[in-house]
């Protein structure tokens, strides 16, 4: 995972509320056994016409949106399923930041583990961003600020641990594995949850 410290990019705006993970990537593309190449299916139902060609009226297909790494989305982005294919598809497509007024729990957790920074802003900033597409913004994890045009700057919050992992480009498995002796001790001291001892 590439470290994320600071990024300046233009925004691409999808103003719809409650964009669910079935829209981000439909279930028929989940039969893959790898993470690779899912960007081609991102927002598949909206990006492509029935004949499979790109829909020129969809924002992400427009010329000015090409290369945008910051997605500004309507309230409650990423609701629905736990599929990590959603952030995988966004990352593969090039998205590194998602900005909204609410981001669904599982999607947010998955995004942070895959190099995508989920940012919550207030209604006023959100409205401004929704109504001003294709503006250059800077997301800086060192100062935890989002810089907008006109020297405007807002702070945002991120779990300190998630921030650390994003900035170092490390995943959390190493941290968990380093606690193995604590897990051993827990299992010794807590006999009250019997294993299910499955026999097929």
């Amino acid at each position, binding site marked *: 995972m590439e470290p994320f410290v600071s990024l300046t990019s233009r925004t691409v705006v999808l103003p719809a509320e409650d964009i669910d993970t*079935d829209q981000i990537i439909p279930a028929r593309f989940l039969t893959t056994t790898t993470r690779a190449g899912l960007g081609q299916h991102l927002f598949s139902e909206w990006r492509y016409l029935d004949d499979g060609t790109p829909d020129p009226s969809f924002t992400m297909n427009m010329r000015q949106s090409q290369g945008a790494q910051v997605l500004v989305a309507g309230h409650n982005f990423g609701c629905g399923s736990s599929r*990590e294919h959603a952030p995988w598809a966004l990352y593969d497509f090039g998205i590194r930041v998602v900005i909204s007024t609410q981001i669904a*729990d599982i999607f947010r957790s998955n995004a942070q583990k895959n190099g995508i920074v989920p940012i919550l802003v207030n209604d006023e900033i959100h409205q401004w961003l929704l109504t001003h597409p294709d503006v250059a913004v800077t997301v800086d994890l060192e100062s935890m600020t989002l810089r907008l045009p006109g020297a405007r700057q807002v702070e945002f919050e991120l779990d300190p641990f998630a921030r650390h992992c994003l900035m170092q480009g490390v995943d959390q498995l190493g941290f968990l594995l380093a606690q193995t002796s604590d897990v051993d001790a827990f299992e010794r001291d807590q006999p009250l949850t019997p294993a299910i001892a*499955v026999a097929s």
Partner: protein
Amino acid sequence: MPQTLFDKIWQRHQVVGESASAPATVYIDLHLVHEVTSPQAFSVLRERGLSVRRPDRTLATLDHSTPTRAAELYGALRPGPATTQIQTLQKNCADFGVPLYDLDSRERGIVHVIGPELGASHPGFTIVCGDSHTSTHGAFGALAFGIGTTEVGHVLATQCLLQRRPKTMAVNVNGRLAPGVSAKDLILAIIGRLGVGGGTGHVLEYRGEAIAALSMEQRMTVCNMSIEAGARAGLVAPDDTTLEYLHGRRFAPRGRDWAAAVSRWRALRSDDGAVFDRSVELDASALAPMITYGTHPGMVMPIDGTVPASQRSALDYMGLSEGQRLIGQPVDVVFVGSCTNSRLSDLRDAARVLRGRKVRDGVRALVVPGSQQVKRDAEAEGLHEIFLSAGAQWRESGCSMCIAMNGDAVGSGQYSVSTSNRNFEGRQGRGARTLLASPMTAAAAAVTGRVTDPRQFL
């Protein structure tokens, strides 16, 4: 200090406590695995030379992309990515020693149906799965929630997850459900009240007279859709109903262990005076059968009502307009199944309506039991004969038309009355228009070919 049920389970599973700089390390008692969200997690174990820490706390099954036609399921699978995914889980389970309920297993079924059915989902457990409907197991007073594939890898390797403490919300449901109004209608009404994102960051505890009166299968239906209000999880305190359900099941404790477990489980309730971050109240006795009209489960209304003002794009997609009644809306497909409504009592509900009646010409009706055990139980009491003689299809167990990954799909532009959990655009097939409802409402639509209030058939 008085504690909520959630607090008790949360506290009990802290391996390392939460701090400002790091989330809590939470121990996981039961990890459920299926073919769609696990391949990349097993790949990480291979890349790093890791093993599965507790195969005895891990259960795998095949459900999402499996065929529901017996000839395909038990014959040669058609080559393609779905088959590759099935074979990948078979190989991963064999290589890592994880018990798998394979395609030919008598215990196979939808992951959230078989966990409870086998008695593997215990009160007080932490239960996770790479599937957002893991909240189903909260019906047993377990803290059960969906995780992504990276976290599936974490649990396989360490039996732990890094989690920040969520907030709590009491959902108090007073009164009793009226005849013809089901647990599905209740949870749809709750989602309508909270909104599709209203539970975000919270663990819901369903409480009150109406919840206490529900059977375990009905509680599972309620907890199942907690995620559709954005909630992290949903749970119900264990009581006599829970104990009666669990007793004697395959992975339930036995003998002296059972007595010890029961005394622990009896303490699993929110203490009097426990403080929730939020609470809402609902009156179950005022509810009618519910049906969705839009493109998420929060867009829901009483079946005898009219479509309210809503997002234009949602109504356009659904081909519906504000102010319109849904009763009488022609229907093309009826689906009874999914981890929400595929258990024996759900099939009995559908059969009550279909008994001695016929599926309307032009309607395709599919009944898909949640597990092979449900299928056998239903057949033992003759439910399949009711479905088949009505003209419905009776299939092998699986997720089927809920997620449309296995070939069972709704056509573009077609209306489906479905007992599943999501009416998102394209969920049941590209362009499919899904109306979520109870098994009784779905069966009534199959009979008339139109959206119908099921109470007229009871």
